């Protein structure tokens, strides 16, 4: 079973909040990095996350700095996906590049600790606690390919470039 986790703030959750600049230089180990996610908003937030869980937010998730440590730390925390109404563009690219799934949909009807199931091919999130299906924006084909490969580097290596992606 996988659950939704929400922070106290909903919109404009920036990369400084995801992982503070204090750590981006200090920690190279991603599991260690994952212990500090959202630390400035909520101490020990990472302890709530079990492998396969979801982070749920509002508009403009991941705005701010281009630090790739942000999606890396979220992926290392065990999250299955970040679900938000919208994402900032650098974060959106970075997430798929490092193999973190992010999906866009209406999130007003997902509460903290709701039980969720994601079906990326059917463009659907099932909110089992509320008994409703939420339609998600289709994940672009190019992004699905990166996810399947485990990230853009792995895709590039196994395909010798991007030429066959279009």
């Amino acid at each position, binding site marked *: 079973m996988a659950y939704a986790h929400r922070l106290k703030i909903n919109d404009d959750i920036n990369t400084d909040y995801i992982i503070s*600049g*204090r750590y981006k*230089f*200090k920690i*190279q180990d991603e599991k260690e990095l994952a212990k500090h996610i959202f630390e400035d908003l909520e101490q020990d937030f990472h302890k709530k996350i079990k492998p396969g869980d979801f982070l749920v937010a509002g508009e403009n998730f991941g*705005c701010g700095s281009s630090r790739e440590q942000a999606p890396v730390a979220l992926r290392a925390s065990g999250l299955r996906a970040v679900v938000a109404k919208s994402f900032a563009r*650098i974060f959106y690219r*970075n997430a798929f590049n490092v193999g973190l799934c992010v999906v866009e949909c209406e999130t007003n009807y997902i509460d903290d600790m709701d039980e969720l199931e994601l079906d990326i091919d059917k463009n659907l999130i099932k909110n089992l606690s509320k008994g409703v299906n939420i339609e998600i924006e289709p994940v*672009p084909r190019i992004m699905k390919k990166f996810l399947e490969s485990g990230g853009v580097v792995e895709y590039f290596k196994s395909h010798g470039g991007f030429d066959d992606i279009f």
Partner: protein
Amino acid sequence: MRQTIAEKILSEHSGKRARAGDIVMANVDFCFGQDGTSGMIVDSFRRMGVESVFDKDRFCMVIDHSAPSPNIGVSAIHDKMRGFAREQSVRVFDIGEGVCHQVVPESGYVTCGDLVLGADSHTCTYGAVNVLSTGVGSTDLAIALASGKNWFKVPETMKIVVDGKLPKGVYSKDLILYVISDVKADGATYQSVEFYGQAINSLSVDARFTISNMAVEMGAKSGIMAPDRKTMDWINKHSIRQPRPVEADEDAKYLEIREYDVSELEPQVACPHTVDNVRPIGEVLGTPVNEVNIGTCTNGRLEDLEVAASILKGRKIAKGMKLIITPASRKIFLDAMKKGYLDIFVEAGAAVNNPGCGPCVGTHQGVLADGETAFSTANRNFKGRMGNPNAEIYLGSPAAAAATALAGEIADPREHKRRL
């Protein structure tokens, strides 16, 4: 053809007629990383199994965010960058050379019509000189570094027209804060913003950099300006490559057009903890401030230092105030020295840093204590940005920052009008 500037540049670089919404593979003219992102660029590059960079003259690394190194971890990253630079014969701008967004254009690496990627979110800065430049993560940068290309989603474009003449004591920083307060932090997400209008035309290229620099604070991919005589003079003086100026077609398709008039604009201040939480300075006058930061890729250029110097000349900063001044590049540092600005700053009681990012990103050179308040000329005021989540950050122009340093509380630079 009816194309925006972004569509034209992406068409030229991909060999396809690029329209908003398309995904294209495009050649990159220049790319770079800084010390917060280059460690991961090198790691991703190595994992790709490519032996050498696509073109050693079209990539550089800049040690600016945490420079000189404040701890062993950062030293190791800097060492890794220098090692990679030696191995690949690529340029590294070392400690004290300046902020990436000043040294990259100042060293001539970009020119009109270019497509540029930087592993730093404020790479949109060069839009001021007609470059489609945008920030990406380290792995995206490594892809460009290995292949000379990357994929791009062709952005929709928002046209922003700013008319009127800025009043005395009101600057390009106030203009862009005002625009951001209207567009909001996510109002231009994934879009290219094109800036036009009398108020933009009358600004120097340095002042325009401040505007393009902050385009990302409304979510934009780039904040680009059409070239004019000032642009061409600047580019011809600095750039090492042939410019290819690009203008939008008259009937290009815009997602949205927003118009502003700044004739009556007051100085603007972004209040904690978001950049779009902007108020006219009159509403926050008297807010006690402990630290003033003048510098960064937003406002660390010579004319920024000049206006601060004209306000600070012959005066002393408030008791208990920490004033930190960080020129954006070595060239600016030297010019400021020759013009006597550094004497003025030091005599006023400021601490002058080596060129670089200074305290902006909270890793060194002015981390705030619990409960402290900063007034900064930077581009972000997120909680924790200057190293402490229990501190508050206000953003404004260099003139407002200098006035604030003298008063010990947020002060209106127009009080010093005779010096401006």
